[in-house]
């Protein structure tokens, strides 16, 4: 093939020579510092001859007499025109383009020059996400963009982080932004239905990401219409860059440890305090706690953390090959990562393949496409107690490690599991009581599995037609297919499978295709009037289906999968699903810019969505914006303000967006469901729909300034926004006598988010050998619910269906903590004092001596039982402000960067602390030693009475377990060294960088739990800020290597 091409070109060259007198020009192109530039395009001014520079920056081009000049262009550098005037040799130093001028942002179905953007968009470069010890890119976004709050819920690998762009914008639907990967909206959320989290976005290898653009206001996101209200995150994967082929290898190894685990009682302390509490309860005769000697003859003292956590070792490898010439660009990559979490047996393994190819067939037609394949394995042995819904799992590992008694061992002295054969729970050893623990997790850690494996294929192809330079027609077809295999097994000896064993298998398919057609017209008139017009259509179809089986009664301990020998088979209903949704849209954008001074833009989209009610299938959404670059005005320069402000742009936007994210496929329909009566089948009215159901509406206002000071040495952005959300979908209960089968989803509620964002970037020092760049952002947000339904004065949300600790009601921020108040401990009697709904102090003792009451007033008279019915809205869980602060220092070949992230002005319900001070058989945090023992004691905890689960907050949530969550974290600290070029030239390597970095190295907080950056309820909107029985976050040390060839 290559020979043929060579032959052809020779023929062409020979032919042209017949017509013109040709001569050869040679030359060399370097950057400002004299380093050769590879792949620079050199084209003759009149004839269409062109070439590119080689590895040393040299070129040779045959030109004709008509060619008076050479045009020299290179991405990222200012294009040059060099007059030939007889020269045969040219040496050129190209100057880098001013970055601020050339930067582009993705705006949905296209890009815009950053300087022309009048909407609120934050950009994060892929480079800062690469090499981070994460499973999915959005875990590393924290602190990088103003107004984008990322919360890593806990230390479970691949658990989707909580993302909030400018606050929580929905109650019943999702507040998760729309994620668009290379033009195709992606699946999000946890795709796994096992105890191992499986974030759908982990199918993207973070090191394949070129940039992330986050559209925050109406103007930036309106082009995504009914899905835009929570913001839009555009992910752009890497493409080949002009020049020779490049090969890069990135690899790293990291170690993860659990941080800030609460200190628990040891075996002796546990034994003593339980005996003390049993005596106080008058049950000392039937609850006798005692130490047991282990195989070494010494008393057993088990640290159950040793049977829950570990130092997780991970390694990560990425290799990519990329390049581009005039007609074709390509990027191929392979990634492999195998990570161990801090939780035992919690592993993540992923293989990714990505191919991005673009080809210009001729001047008018280009084609291209992308194929991305990812195989991810999310592995776990048992519940960590940390995923949404798991908080109160009897076998939640994080909880077991804190509850199980330290005076018994996981193993009997003969090496068998210490399990009570009657109950399947942890065995008692020398204790004489009914229970000293929940499950013995050792059996599950050894024998069980709770795995999911996702195979995900994302791809697209496009055809682009450019008949005239100012018009681009493009048709793109993309798919996102995800297949999830869930595989669970619980052995008969583990608590989860006791006593018969079981296996569950479930298969889930999610399929989506998107077909987008756009026409983009760009025209500049008289060098001053720049018009852009986009028109497009899009269809998106999503299908999901899945089913599962449960088998129980294992035939033989040898079997460990669903295909093995079991006695029974049943449907596993948790994963039975089938559904589809469809979205059809037309959209458009008009931009106009006058002389780079005044810009306006308008976006509009009309969406039809299948999930919506029959009467409201279609909605129109729009956003408009305007910008004014004042620094270009004469009066500005006249006032010499340009000496300070090199740029100063005022901008504003307004628009109306929708939210349908998380709406059920068929919820708007009235349907009948099947059942049984007297063994015959039945059909019954099962769902009352709402034909008027429509999207939630966000009306967004945004005003801001962007500025550059001292020749853009300092750049900044300040934005104020206000988002009024109306028509929030709530399930509105009708009078029960109406007899409807369900509360009907209705557009009734409203709330707002408003706030201020400030971003500052500064190149503080920039010398040849030393540079210091600093970047700071802060975002203030205020959320308040303004209306629910008349029949719904408040909405109490639970954690894992058990603990009603969150309330949403008008006049308060969403997800306000809802607890019963306390009034300290009575120093005279050691009783917990509650404040009941009537505001009166109620003294509580779990076991009342004769003549006294469990609940009594100060005067000793009986008081009504205090419960969750006495709870009142308490404190706010939404951070008042949050952001990041990053500093990067470079000295010669050394580089040091530190990113701090912070969230301030919010409270967390540390529910785990209730369990840590529970006076049943549960082990306690060591601070329980400071409990009341005699009259006058000013103790932190009340008199211990065996069986008391009320005074500590287990029975119903109390204010004593609510804490300020404010924190500053040293999110990442990286020290890097780039091997100097001369050394590399010897070994024919382009670049080598070595680095060591730390993640979560330090946290500054007064929060008593492991980490105030937490969420027991995942992305739940109305039950955020809850830390209940979950694993802590990890602290990770990484060493790594980047090599470029």
């Amino acid at each position, binding site marked *: 093939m290559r020979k043929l091409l060579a032959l052809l070109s020779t023929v062409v060259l020979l032919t042209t020579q017949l017509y013109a007198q040709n001569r050869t020009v040679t030359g060399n192109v370097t950057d400002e510092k004299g380093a050769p530039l590879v792949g620079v395009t050199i084209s003759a001014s009149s004839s269409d001859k062109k070439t590119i520079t080689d590895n040393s920056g040299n070129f040779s081009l045959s030109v004709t007499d008509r060619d008076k000049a050479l045009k020299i262009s290179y991405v990222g550098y200012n294009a040059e025109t060099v007059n030939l005037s007889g020269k045969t040799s040219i040496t050129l130093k190209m100057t880098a383009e001013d970055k601020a001028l050339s930067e582009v942002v993705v705006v949905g179905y296209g890009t815009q020059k950053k300087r022309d953007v009048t909407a609120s968009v934050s950009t994060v470069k892929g480079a800062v996400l690469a090499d981070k010890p994460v499973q999915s890119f959005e875990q590393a976004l924290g602190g990088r963009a103003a107004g984008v709050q990322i919360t890593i819920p806990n230390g479970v690998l691949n658990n989707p982080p909580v993302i909030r762009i400018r606050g929580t914008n929905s109650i019943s639907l999702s507040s998760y932004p729309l994620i668009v990967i290379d033009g195709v909206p992606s699946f999000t959320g946890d795709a796994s239905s096992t105890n191992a989290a499986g974030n759908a976005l982990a199918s993207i290898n973070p090191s394949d990401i070129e940039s992330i653009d986050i559209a925050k206001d109406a103007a930036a996101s309106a082009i995504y219409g009914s899905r835009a209200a929570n913001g839009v995150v555009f992910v752009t994967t890497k493409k080949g860059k002009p020049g020779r082929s490049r090969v890069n290898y990135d690899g790293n190894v990291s170690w993860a440890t659990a941080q800030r685990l609460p200190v628990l009682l040891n075996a002796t302390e546990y034994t003593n305090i339980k005996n003390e509490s049993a005596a106080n309860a008058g049950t000392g005769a039937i609850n006798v706690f005692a130490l047991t000697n282990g195989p070494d003859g010494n008393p057993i003292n088990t640290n159950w953390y040793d049977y829950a956590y570990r130092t997780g070792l991970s390694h990560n490898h990425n290799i990519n090959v990329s390049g581009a010439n005039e007609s074709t660009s390509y990027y191929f990559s392979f990634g492999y990562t195998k990570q161990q979490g801090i939780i035992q047996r919690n592993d993540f393994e992923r293989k990714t393949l990505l191919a991005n190819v673009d080809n210009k067939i001729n001047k008018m037609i280009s084609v291209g496409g992308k194929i991305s394949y990812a195989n991810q394995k999310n592995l776990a042995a048992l519940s960590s107690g940390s995923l949404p819904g798991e908080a109160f799992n009897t076998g939640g590992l994080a909880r077991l490690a804190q509850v199980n008694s330290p005076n018994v061992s996981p193993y009997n002295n003969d090496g068998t599991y210490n399990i009570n054969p009657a109950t399947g729970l942890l065995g008692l050893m020398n204790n004489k009581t009914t229970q000293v623990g929940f499950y013995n997790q050792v059996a599950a850690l050894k024998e069980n599995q709770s795995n999911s494996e996702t195979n995900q294929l994302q791809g697209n192809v496009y055809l682009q*037609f450019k*008949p*005239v330079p100012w*018009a681009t*027609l493009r*048709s793109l077809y993309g798919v996102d297919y995800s297949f999830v295999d869930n595989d669970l097994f619980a052995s008969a000896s583990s608590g989860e499978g006791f006593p018969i064993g079981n296996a569950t298998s479930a298969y889930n398919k999610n399929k989506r295709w998107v077909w987008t057609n*756009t*026409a983009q017209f760009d025209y500049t008139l008289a060098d001053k009037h720049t018009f852009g017009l986009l*028109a*497009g*259509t*899009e*269809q998106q*179809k999503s299908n999901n289906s899945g089913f599962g089986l449960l088998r129980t009664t294992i035939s033989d301990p040898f079997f460990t999968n669903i295909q093995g020998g079991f006695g029974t088979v049943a449907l596993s209903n948790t994963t039975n699903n*089938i*559904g589809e*949704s*469809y979205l*059809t*849209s*037309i959209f458009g954008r008009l931009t106009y810019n006058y002389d780079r001074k005044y810009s306006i833009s308008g976006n509009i989209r009309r969406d*039809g*969505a*299948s999930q919506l009610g*029959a009467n409201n*299938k279609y909605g129109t959404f729009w956003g408009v914006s305007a910008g004014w670059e004042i620094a270009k005005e004469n009066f500005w320069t006249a006032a010499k303000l340009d000496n300070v402000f090199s740029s100063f742009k005022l901008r504003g936007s307004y628009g109306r967006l929708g939210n349908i994210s998380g709406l059920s*496929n*068929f919820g708007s*329909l*009235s*349907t*009948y*469901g*099947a*059942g*049984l*009566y*007297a*063994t*015959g089948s*039945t*059909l*019954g*009215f*099962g*769902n*009352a729909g*709402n*034909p008027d159901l429509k999207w939630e509406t966000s009306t967004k206002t945004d005003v801001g300034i962007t500025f550059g000071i001292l020749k853009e040495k300092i750049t900044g952005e300040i934005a104020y926004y206000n988002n009024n959300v109306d028509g929030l979908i709530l399930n*509105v209960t*009708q*009078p*029960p*006598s*109406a*007899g*409807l089968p369900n509360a*009907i989803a*209705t557009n009734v509620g409203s709330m707002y988010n408003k706030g201020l964002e400030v971003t500052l970037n500064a190149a503080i020092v920039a010398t040849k050998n030393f540079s210091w760049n600093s970047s700071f952002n802060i975002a203030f947000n205020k959320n308040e619910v303004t209306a629910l339904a008349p*029949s719904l004065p408040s909405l109490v949300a639970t954690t894992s269906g058990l603990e009603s600790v969150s309330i949403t009601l008008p006049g308060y921020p969403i997800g306000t903590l809802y607890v019963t108040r306390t009034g300290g401990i009575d120093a005279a009697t050691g009783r917990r004092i509650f404040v009941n709904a009537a505001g009166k102090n109620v003294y509580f003792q779990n076991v009342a001596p004769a003549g006294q009451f469990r609940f009594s007033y100060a005067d000793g008279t009986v008081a009504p039982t205090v419960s969750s019915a006495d709870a009142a809205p308490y404190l706010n869980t939404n951070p008042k402000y949050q952001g990041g602060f990053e500093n990067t220092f470079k000295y010669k070949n050394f580089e040091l960067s530190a990113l701090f992230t912070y969230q301030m002005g919010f409270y967390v319900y540390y529910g785990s602390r209730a369990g840590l001070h529970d006076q049943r058989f549960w082990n306690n945090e060591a601070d329980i030693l400071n409990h009341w023992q005699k009259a006058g004691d000013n103790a932190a905890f009340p008199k211990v009475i065996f069986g008391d689960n009320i005074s500590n907050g287990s029975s119903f949530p109390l204010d004593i377990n609510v804490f300020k969550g404010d924190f500053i974290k040293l999110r990442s600290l990286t020290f890097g060294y780039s091997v100097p070029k001369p050394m590399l030239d010897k070994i024919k390597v382009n670049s080598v960088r070595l680095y060591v970095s730390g993640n979560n190295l330090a946290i500054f907080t007064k929060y008593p739990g492991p980490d105030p950056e937490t969420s027991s309820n995942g992305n739940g909107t109305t039950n955020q800020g809850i830390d209940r029985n979950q694993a802590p976050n990890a602290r990770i040390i990484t060493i790594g290597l980047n090599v470029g060839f």
Partner: protein
Amino acid sequence: MKKKILYITMLSSVMMMAVSCSKETLSPVPTTSISDANAFATTDRILGQVKNLYAGMRSGSFYGGRYIIYNDIRADEFINELTNVVTGYDVWNGTMNNSSTNSVVSLWAQAYFTINLCNVFLDGMAASGNTVVGSTLAANYNAEAKMVRAICYYSLLQLYARPYSDGAGSKPGLPLRLQGNTGSGNYDLARSTVAQVYQQVLDDLNFAETNLPLTYGSAAQLSNVTRGHKNTAIAFKTRVYLSMQKYTEATTEANKIVSATPPFTAATGVPFALQSDITKVFASPYITTESVLSMPFNGTTETPGGQNQLGYYYGQTGLNGGNGEYSLNTNGIIANAGWTATDKRRSLIYTATNGKKFVSKYPSVSPFTDYAPVMRYSEVLLNLAEAKVRTSNTVDAQAVALLNAVRNRSDASTIFTVASFATAADLIAAILTERRIEFLGEGLRAPDLARLALPIPAKGSIAAIPFSAQNYIWPISATELQLNKLMTDN
């Protein structure tokens, strides 16, 4: 240039057209449930809906368990063992309030849910279903729906409204809903009077009597027990008229299905008759001609649900692994001297190791799938007996014979004669005592007290509740009061 612009226009319009062919995809049809538009499209679907009406009634919070339990435990035959409000402690001691979730709120909701199922069904039949199944089946099915609706309203009256005997039905009854509700709307509706609701119950039962089939056939015994037929509607009318103290009408209705002389049976339709051994009625397969209507349960696919099952409340660890929620009041009917030790019905009482006695009419083990009895033929016999005595105010010979029929099949040794009773009142007392013995644990005790305006006697540590007391009946569901602005509390 012009050519190029033409290309652009053409291509653009092709792209736009791609969107226009997508209308149907925008209204996808679910595949795991059936659209309301097609629910009446086939005969099978309509029959499935008919059965679903009974399934609504069978819910564990209604006739599948709790309705029967509540009417037992709020009276005087039972003692609460576990003080658990989830399993009716507040109902037992008469302290339930508007927000009592498991009793006041959920039973109200389930009964009205079932009523709405009937209303939606009747509307759908009128709109299209009648023509799909043809006039005969249409009449049958509509009659079944009206019968279920009547039972629901009657049952709600027993708990949430003053008895008919208090002011002849003039007190506030229930919101009378006769239209199907399928979406959001203004559902404010005031209470009709007790008499108005009873009238609706009777209208529905009369319609049912006229239009129900005589029988589902001798081969379809299961349907004869678990669905309504002509005699079911008549039998239930005897209960309704008795509740209204309309004894003449009760007699008329009962005579339609009780022969003049023993052995008492229904001459037409499903041949109701007492079984020779009462324990057979409460044993698998639960399908006898004595069961006027029962709520069926099966295996693991049709169960009453947790903490709803009769066997779970009344059974005990040593009997069936039940929870022993309610033992029998030692001062209740089990102390009756006339109830002989050899009476077969004594065998339906279980004595636990601690000496406490429990009803063992529902002996199956978890998931406790004994059929729940809505009505038995022996009640029709005793209804007739009582009505005859009350209308004639004499010691009626047939009434004595009816009483004997019930007594003698379980206790052959006790034979009543006309001479056994000095006055009509004595005979009525004997009939009422017989009811307490015969229907112990079947939910008839509280309605029997209420229809006769009798106080709820004291039990254990709980004082008697006089007929006039506010807590003689239940309060109205708090949710109803909150959401239905025209609703009033009791």
